[in-house]
């Protein structure tokens, strides 16, 4: 039984890893940034298709973001008011469920966007994200404030 449970967990982890990797692209509206578009060679047609994918996802993203924030607030209130353990546990699970839904919607949107790009464009986008992250780490080490570094690219 334990072996089955462990195998299931490993399977779920293996399935989740590529999804997490999909989401590893610059945050924000990167396809509207001239420097990003130039760097990955984004065409006008691709930009329009990606915008359409975002516009289709936007209402759900707004709803899910608001839902998550409301549940986070409820959890925060419960903890501040010393609510019972069971109540806090329920609210915590609600927060994590809401977060999962938001993450799922975001990742599926990115998967659709990936379908518009070539493999090279997608790889370059991920590289840019990694470079931005590296610059942020460098900025933190050097004591600098590197806010939203990926927005510079």
């Amino acid at each position, binding site marked *: 039984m334990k072996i089955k449970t462990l195998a299931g967990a490993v399977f779920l982890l293996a399935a989740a890893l590529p999804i997490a990797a999909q989401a590893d692209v610059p*945050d924000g509206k990167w396809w509207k940034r001239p420097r990003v578009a130039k760097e990955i060679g984004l065409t006008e047609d691709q930009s329009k298709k990606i915008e359409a994918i975002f516009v289709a996802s936007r209402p759900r993203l707004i709803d899910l973001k608001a839902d998550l924030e409301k549940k986070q607030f409820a959890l925060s209130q419960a903890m501040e008011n010393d609510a019972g353990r069971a109540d806090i546990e329920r609210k915590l699970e609600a927060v994590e469920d809401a977060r999962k839904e938001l993450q799922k919607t975001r990742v599926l949107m990115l998967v659709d966007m990936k379908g518009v790009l070539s493999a090279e464009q997608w790889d370059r986008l991920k590289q840019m994200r990694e470079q931005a992250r590296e610059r942020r780490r460098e900025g933190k080490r050097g004591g600098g404030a590197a806010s939203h570094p990926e927005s510079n690219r």
Partner: protein
Amino acid sequence: MEKRDAGHLTDDELFGLALPPAGEPEALPAHLLQCARCGRALQEWKSAVRELARDEVEPLARRSSEEWRAAEDRTLERIRRAGSRRAPRSLPWAVGVAAALLLVAFLLPAVRNARERTASVSDSAAASELSAADAADDQLLRDVARLSRGDDDAGVAGGLVPDPSADAEDRL
């Protein structure tokens, strides 16, 4: 300037050969081809110069004042050792190199500040790349990414648990 000793190259000449002025080709004197002593001396000068140039700009930028002082002491010691094997004439150069190191140490904070100011200006420029509607969408996407990754301040623990990555003054 010291005079040549039995036709050997002076420290000034050796230093000039080890670190030629930018853009000028390194013309080796014919004496070097015949004199093993001057050849060795030149190698010592070159290795001292290489030691100074070994670090790249980025690692240099991260050095603390203490590290700079330690590097300065090491360089002075190395130059003193190299000089004492031949003659104590390299001290003026050691002082020059030490002064250059000190200058870099004092200039670095200014360079860092300038870089940070540039980054901040770039952020503003990046934000202005987008129209008002796009900027709102951009913020939505950033919030969604942050929340779905769990990077938000409220987080799972509702912000009541101290964040170990927070600044020292934020810790309990």
